[in-house]
């Protein structure tokens, strides 16, 4: 390995979207299927240029977002690390296949660069209106991982994280960005792959006759060989037993669905990433994510300058919701403010976990403009 250390980490001036591309390639993404949509197209264009030049990279523009996710699922079954990126309208089209990916436990990364909605909405303006859709958009009970990123450097790191979680937990991972994060250009460091933790899905260690593709294991995550490697099995969106065959037997159905929940929920401590800023002695707390967390960071600094004990939790993981961290903040602060570019989607979660020790205030903005530090600071001063 050390012989390879010829080059060093690079510094580049990049868009958030380009940082996603860098992160994906570092994580070992070798398949991208997508359909263009503002404000995510730069991710697609970056992959179109870069992937064919990598060792075995495949890029394909599909006929719509359903097809894009379908192709990613196929490639994931074939053993690839896969990614697609879209925005609201495309994300809505993908919902059925997100559930399919959950059901067949196909690792994949889906980036949704959120824009104003509903419908075609505000194509070039930022929003955070797809948060609950990311959690609950597909039909049926399911568990899923939803991440976000605050700035351009973060776009790179959270993309790597998204791939790692997808592989480690055999699940689709949704990375929610907003138009501002994706279209901000700033200087970032692109690390070397060998300096990062890069995870790969577990491979079976047993002979094919013994392999059960959806077997209950301690971690709840069965190994997943690529198609064509001698482990022939059946994959279906129908509720299936541990061989992958459709079943309607209550005990098998319950076992299958519970494992799909458990494999993610029991590792909450690994999955829930938060960035805490001055929360230790905070009396007024802020919970934010995405580009809003940047404004919130500044607002907290300014509040401290004015002698107000403010603190911020920047949620990098949105789901499973980082309950422990937020509950801690709610216990310490008399007021917790949740600014977001929607009518109140994460604030619902914050209120849900509030032990009654704090008042939860919301700042909501849906006019296609960012929430400014000033807006948040005003709220902190009142809080």
């Amino acid at each position, binding site marked *: 390995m050390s012989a390879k250390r010829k080059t060093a980490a690079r510094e580049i001036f990049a868009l958030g979207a380009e940082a996603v591309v860098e992160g994906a390639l570092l994580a070992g993404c*070798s*398949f991208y*299927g997508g359909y263009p949509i503002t404000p995510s197209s730069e991710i697609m264009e970056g992959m179109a240029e870069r992937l*064919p*030049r990598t060792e075995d990279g*495949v890029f*394909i523009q*599909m*006929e*719509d977002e*359903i*097809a*894009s*996710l*379908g*192709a*990613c*699922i*196929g*490639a*994931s*079954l*074939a*053993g*690839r690390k*896969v990614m697609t990126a879209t925005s609201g309208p495309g994300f809505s089209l993908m919902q*059925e*296949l997100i559930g*399919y990916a959950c059901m067949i436990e196909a690792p994949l990364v889906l980036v949704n660069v959120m824009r104003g909605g509903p419908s075609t909405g505000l194509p070039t303006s930022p929003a955070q209106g797809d948060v609950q859709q990311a959690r609950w958009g597909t039909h049926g009970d399911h568990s899923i991982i939803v991440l976000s990123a605050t700035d351009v450097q973060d776009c790179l790191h959270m993309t790597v994280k998204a791939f790692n979680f997808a592989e480690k937990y055999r699940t689709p991972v949704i990375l929610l960005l907003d138009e501002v994060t994706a279209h901000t250009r700033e200087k970032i460091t692109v690390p070397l792959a060998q300096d990062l933790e890069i995870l790969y899905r577990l491979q079976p260690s047993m002979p094919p006759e013994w392999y059960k593709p959806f077997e209950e294991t301690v971690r709840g995550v069965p190994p997943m060989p*690529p*198609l*064509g*490697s*001698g482990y*022939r*099995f*059946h*994959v*279906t*969106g*129908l509720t299936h037993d541990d*061989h992958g*065959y*459709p079943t309607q037997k209550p005990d098998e159905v319950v076992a299958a669905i519970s494992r799909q929940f458990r494999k993610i929920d029991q590792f909450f401590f690994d999955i829930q990433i938060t960035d805490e800023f001055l929360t230790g002695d905070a009396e007024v707390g802020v919970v934010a994510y995405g580009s809003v967390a940047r404004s919130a960071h500044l607002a907290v600094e300014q509040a401290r300058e004015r002698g107000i004990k403010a603190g911020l939790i920047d949620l990098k993981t949105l789901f499973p919701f980082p309950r422990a961290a937020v509950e801690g903040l709610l216990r310490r602060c008399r007021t917790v403010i949740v600014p977001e570019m929607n009518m109140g989607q994460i604030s619902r979660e914050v209120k849900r976990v509030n032990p009654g020790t704090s008042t939860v205030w919301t700042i909501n903005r849906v006019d296609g403009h960012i929430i400014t530090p000033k807006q948040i600071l005003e709220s902190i001063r009142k809080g």
Partner: protein
Amino acid sequence: MAEVTQLIHEYLRHDKKFPHVLCPGCGHGILLGSLIRSVHALGIPKDDVALVAGIGCSGRVAVYVDFNTVHAVHGRALTVATGIKMAKPDMHVIVVQGDGDALSIGGNHFIHAARRNIGLTVLVLNNFIYGMTGGQCSSATPLGCWSTTTPYGQMEKSFDFVEMTRAAGANFVSRGTVFHVKTLDKLVRQALVHPGFSLVEVLTPCHTQFGRKNKFKSPVDMYQWLKKAAMPLEAYEKLDPDKRAGRIPIGVFVDNHEPALETRYAAMRAKLAKG
């Protein structure tokens, strides 16, 4: 003939419950036999076959056979198959879909997969109806036919799958029936080795949901009809045009050899690698 069934049994998953779920006389089972014989005749290892199925009675055949089998969601089998083929171009990726799956809900994917000329073997089991959901009309239900959603007769024209696939740009386009099994075996074998998008439209009786309601007394009646109606394309072309009504040409309609998408992609990558 004993080897025929014995061979099929070698490819079935014996940990699955048989008989399979399909109705008595459903033509989908005959196609499954044809597919197994064809893969075997070509000596393709089971490991190298990915069988991607849509949703419908047609999609249910996949679970019974010992390949790498993927039962996708309704209409999207071709998208999943496209991902597999691009990720593993050496695999034989076979798609089994119903008429509804392929050209009603999945029509957009179908025309684009054909246009891309990606190396998939696509078997469309056309029974002119939505079998699984109880006999609603599909884009293949013939004009005037009864279905639960066209109780006064189908008013819309149906798709001609062959012409549609030809127009979209596929390399290999053919039609067979489950009655003419030897021809069908031949078509499936050809489709399996033909580079690029290769279609076999397979006419197959669904007595339960289509035949019964459209003046066929028994499954056997439907096979009698297929036997009479279908004729080799070459003979059909020689027919007087006004004698063609009610006759269905079967055989190979398009036999082109343009490079498949995955081949073009590999060539582009090779060029890039050289700098």
